[in-house]
């Protein structure tokens, strides 16, 4: 049986769209509940992940609601119309599992959900671009190659093209992108979701203890 999720979004069209993608997915993703308020997700403890719209009300992004979900141990896939780097990186810092812009939904939302319910990292291209261009003073330290691969992933949205360009295998490209995500999980405010991500990466051999 496939994973189960909750959708928090105030826009019925988005909820319907995500429901349709989930129904078509194989294995099927079950939508346990959907609604415009974060309580919908908090009251559904069996959901393995939450698709969360950052803009529930006009004005400021709902960072407070995101923090509540993370503190409740939920794996949150932020699904946002905001496309600026600061918002994306702030969500990761608060403990979101991953961050997708609404333009990336058709290709990346379903694979992101499969990955995050297994506590595996998933970095869609725009989030990768935000990490590659991150200039904040307390950002994680990336190697030159990691930054180049992330930038290439952002530009091309194709791991095959990235692999071709740097003469790497697609798997190695995946490893670079995954490792950077773990570096971000290892920075900033601690959260159980971040710990789960790091633990899983250790089990998968994506990183080793020395790399932390």
């Amino acid at each position, binding site marked *: 049986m496939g994973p189960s999720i909750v959708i928090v979004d105030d826009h019925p069209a988005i909820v319907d769209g995500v429901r349709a993608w989930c129904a078509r997915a194989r294995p099927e993703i079950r939508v346990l509940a959907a609604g415009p308020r974060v309580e919908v997700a908090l009251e559904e403890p069996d959901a393995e992940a939450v698709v969360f719209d950052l803009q529930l009300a006009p004005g400021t992004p709902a960072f407070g609601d995101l923090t509540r979900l993370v503190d409740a141990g939920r794996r949150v896939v932020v699904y946002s*119309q*905001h*496309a*600026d*780097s*600061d918002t994306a990186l702030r969500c990761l810092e608060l403990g979101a599992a991953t961050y997708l*812009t*609404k*333009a990336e939904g058709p290709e990346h939302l379903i694979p992101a959900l499969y990955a995050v319910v297994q506590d595996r990292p998933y970095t869609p*291209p*725009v989030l990768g*671009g*935000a990490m*590659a*261009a*991150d*200039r904040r003073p307390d950002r994680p330290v990336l190697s030159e190659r990691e*930054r180049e691969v992330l*930038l290439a992933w*952002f*530009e*091309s*949205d*194709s791991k*095959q*093209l990235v*692999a*071709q*360009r740097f003469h790497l295998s697609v798997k190695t490209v995946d490893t670079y992108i995954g490792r950077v995500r773990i570096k971000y999980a290892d920075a900033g405010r601690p959260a159980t979701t971040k710990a789960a991500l790091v633990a899983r990466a250790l089990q998968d051999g994506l990183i080793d203890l020395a790399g932390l």
Partner: protein
Amino acid sequence: MAPVSGELDGELSARLLRGLRIAQTVITLVILFGLTLPNLLAAVAAYHPAWAAPVGWALLVAVAAVDALLVARHCFWGRARAPVALGVLALAVTMPLALDPAELGGPAQGTLGVVGWIWVLLFAGAPLRGLVALILGHLLIVLGLLVATGRTDRVTLVAFGITAVAVTSFQLAVALAGSALRAVARQAVEAAESEARARTAEEVARTVHADREARYAELRAVALPLLQGIGEGTLDPSDAQVQQAAARAAARLRRMFAEEGDADDALAAELAALIDIAERRGVVVRYSERGPRPVPPPDAAGALLASAEAALHAARAAARVTLAGVGGAVVVGVVTDGAARVPLPDVADVGTSTVEAGGATWVEARWAPRS
């Protein structure tokens, strides 16, 4: 924003501090010429050798003169501060050694009151710790000399104490005023900056609002006729042309709603124009930008755009366009479903690369200035 604020901060506190430094210089010169000089001239005979008095005085005047020059040139002592301050301390210790012990602590010891002022000059714009340590250390050494020469009678000690407290408190008060002035200047600058930020935010909000209005006007022009036509049945949703028009409109709507971007500049605007042309041909374009970007010189920007234009020209149905600022470089990426022939740029610091895989062509043009 940061360099501007630094300049403003520097300018205002420098102006305030300079006024104070000029006042300090005047005080010190008046004391050197009006008080120290007559006292030393009257006591030349008490110094062994006698030339110690005028030479010592001349050295102090020289330091004050150099400081006056620095004030005039808006400079501080910097690295020279510590050695010069210690040299003055050495002078303040050796001159009393050349003085008749009976005159110690009195007017004949011309350095007693004035060296503190010299240090106040030296420590303008620097933390007060060093100044306080020097002044107190100097007083303790003089006290030690009094004790060593047996001048421990009450009258001498009380007179020394009064001189020490009176002179030192004046000097420290003036130095503290300098510190306070810097703090006030900083606060004033912060207040001015926060006001400027608020004004900027308002201006940005106004611009964004106007921009949104313009975009919704465009939306009405692009999407409404299409929706109206489908609603009224004059346009057939199964018609390939109608589908293409709908895809075009949808792509534009996505771009309008996404409120993309970490920066806004001419390069992004030109790129948007190229995307617009491709969309008019029916190509569905996805656009993303990331990272703060420096502004490339016109020929480099032209080369980046030429590469993007050639790549977009080859697109048949879909394209991905990205604009990124990474580590001081500006990178324009175009991925299309066509085979692009990209011109080789002949512009300094601009390079391109083309990668093909799985029917997709990815053209990247990068401006990386050698700094």
